[in-house]
């Protein structure tokens, strides 16, 4: 434990990376997942199939492989994130960070899409019919009536997906982002006698972060409960 307390600043900055990875990927995965579900339930068959294929391929690929692709293979194809270079205190957001955010977002968006699709299926058909009957277009029906209700119905599974994302950010530590896992490995290597304490400390912080997330989710669930 002392190793953690003595290096509390470094540990803090490491978790700042974790939280930033989560926030960027979380928002992007929600946006992309919403877009995917709109394609999947939309009227254009080609787009339905394209979205379904994307979900199948990306969801069935291990996250580690997706990250390796963006770190090693994508640059050879000309896809790089070298344009990202932000320094803020000890936080450094570089091409590694960019590749991690993109990988995590693409991967998580497939789970967001499926969680939302179960929510869309729970919205009674009559809601969409009534929305069409007042002259809303497909986009209007989705954005005004179906998706808002689908989000409300999907809060618990979406929270699980986002919690998984928060923990998945540790994979980025393997690829040059100095987030919690990377810092933990350095500490356990330097203070081999305190391994258990270091593990415990990092685990506790993750538990607290996830707890905050589930608290927010249950707040949202209560606030959005349809009277």
């Amino acid at each position: 434990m002392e190793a953690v307390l003595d290096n509390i600043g470094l540990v803090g900055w490491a978790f700042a990376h974790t939280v930033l990875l989560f926030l960027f990927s979380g928002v992007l995965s929600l946006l992309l997942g919403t877009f995917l579900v709109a394609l999947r339930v939309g009227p254009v068959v080609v787009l339905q199939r394209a979205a379904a294929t994307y979900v199948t391929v990306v969801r069935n690929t291990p996250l580690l492989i997706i990250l390796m692709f963006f770190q090693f293979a994508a640059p050879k194809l000309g896809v790089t994130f070298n344009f990202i270079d932000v320094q803020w205190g000890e936080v450094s957001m570089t091409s590694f960070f960019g590749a991690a955010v993109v990988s995590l977002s693409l991967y998580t968006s497939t789970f967001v899409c499926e969680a939302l699709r179960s929510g869309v299926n729970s919205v009674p058909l009559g809601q969409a019919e009534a929305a069409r009957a007042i002259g809303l277009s497909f986009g209007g029906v989705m954005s005004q009536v179906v998706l808002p209700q689908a989000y409300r119905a999907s809060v618990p599974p979406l929270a699980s997906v986002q919690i998984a994302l928060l923990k998945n950010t540790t994979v980025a530590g393997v690829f040059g982002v100095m987030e919690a896992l990377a810092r933990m490995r350095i500490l356990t290597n330097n203070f081999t006698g305190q391994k258990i304490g270091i593990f415990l400390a990092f685990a506790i912080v993750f538990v607290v972060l996830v707890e905050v997330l589930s608290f927010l989710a249950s707040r949202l669930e209560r606030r959005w409960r349809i009277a």
Partner: protein
Amino acid sequence: MTALEKQPEAPAAGEPLVVLDGVNKWFGKLHVLQDINISIKRGEVVVVIGPSGSGKSTLCRAINRLETIDQGSIALDGDPLPQEGKALAALRADVGMVFQSFNLFAHKTILENVTLGPIKVRKKPKAEAEAKARELLDRVGVGVQAEKYPAQLSGGQQQRVAIARALAMEPKVMLFDEPTSALDPEMIKEVLDVMVSLAKGGMTMIVVTHEMGFARTAADRVIFMSDGAIVEENTPHEFFTNPQSARAKDFLGKILKH
């Protein structure tokens, strides 16, 4: 409720507004609409009755293309129904629809339910849409409920909100698909009262219903359907007192005497 009678109505009452010509539809092998020809004049109130499964609801839903048809044509105000896209959305905005199960938007307040169409489809300013919505809600007698959510209202109140929501679009014609079938008996009257005053106000209405009392008081014409076809068409008085077909006699015998 008399305020409802002051509905703004398009000029030139009497010309055909909704015309169905040779409409056929199949659900698989089931021929649910069989060669339907109807012409409904502006300002006319047509009540469609018939036993369950006779195709009345399908007919009603076909008029704003919630159901597609396989043959024939449906025209509104002289223009054939568009296939899809923006033109279809524009048509639906001009056709008010009231459903059996109300279908109020569950996550929106009563006021938001009524203003959604005017704001998003008619592009009206929010304040104007809200003023108009409150006026309509007052007319149908649920003005004090404006800030509540649909689930907090009774069925009869919800259905009256649904009528206000449709009226807010200033439709050319109103379709009612069994509007009172999901209601308790005591709530049926409050909904029918609203519909009767709408009818008196000159609104063109197509009403699928089992309420014979409404047909007698408010309808200009009764269409009797059975097994997907129009069997009989007459004024309410003639139809109820002197039905021509055996099928209609049988149906009326069952529902009028019990």
